[in-house]
């Protein structure tokens, strides 16, 4: 049992601490939770719940925001 697990973040494999929450994941990536929307295994996780949801090995996490577009 290692202290870290592999998850997919925006299509890239990332190593995160076992038991980390989504909020901790955002912090480790230096992302402001106020400007990022989080999708966890295809389900949107609202901001107030980001600290409640822990990630598991193989989870697919998408972190999106607004960019320029028409």
């Amino acid at each position, binding site marked *: 049992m290692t202290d870290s697990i592999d998850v997919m973040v925006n299509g890239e494999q990332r190593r995160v601490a076992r038991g980390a929450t989504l909020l901790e994941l955002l912090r480790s990536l230096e992302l402001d939770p106020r400007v990022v929307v989080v999708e966890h295994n295809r389900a949107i996780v609202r901001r107030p719940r980001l600290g409640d949801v822990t990630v598991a090995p193989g989870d697919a996490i998408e972190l999106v925001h607004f960019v320029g*577009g028409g």
Partner: protein
Amino acid sequence: MTAAVDTIRDTPFVVGGRTFHSRLMVGTGKYRDNEIMARAIEASGAEVVTVAVRRVDLDRSKETGILHHLDPSRFFLLANTAGCFTADDAVRYARLAREAGFNEFVKLEVIGDQETLLPDVQGLLDAARTLVKDGFKVLAYSNEDLVTALRLEDAGCAAVMPLASPIGSGLGLLNPYGIRTIKRRLSVPVVVDAGVGTASDACVTMEQGVDGILMNTALAAARDPVGMAHAMRLAVEAGRTAYLAGRMPKHEVAVPSSPLEGMLD
């Protein structure tokens, strides 16, 4: 606003229960840099500004987030589902956009063809129905086909957005008749989206009686985006005002403007 324009009373521009002061909506894509984008948007006078939903760049090689350059308290952010080729994808993007917490409006695009970026009508209708049921105010990017527009209205869309010509083409208004017909038959606002290339295109489009125009590339790809944004603002106002004023009838023969009487022998 000049006194002459004041004499023509326009109806408010209301979409999805919200009143907007400008009939020109602008996109935020493809600008050379964000400073020019911000100045162009300012010059356009637009209130509704479209944005796209994309992955955050995790390695931070570039800061792509638009909210660093656009004050969300000053503009109405209209998220799009650009790049989506299926109804499911479009619904997914729309839900992610709504979660950003600004509003429940979405500019729905379901693209059916890579080369022309023309809409997939079936996917568009499916996604529109799902999103309306889910509480969204859907502004649906559509082709200039009347029946599609009617179905989108039936589906509960807050506005229908027929194209002037393909996205990013700058070819101008290719089917004025189609656009006029849609405007005549629909009760919801009709906002022409895509294809406007220069100010005259915007003016002619507004003269068809549509409620507004959304454009992006016409500004972003102009030599001087800020200058073009100013021109577009004037053109949209000019076209709208001309529509309200009512154009003269066309004649196939000349009709003299000066009196025929009083000519010398």
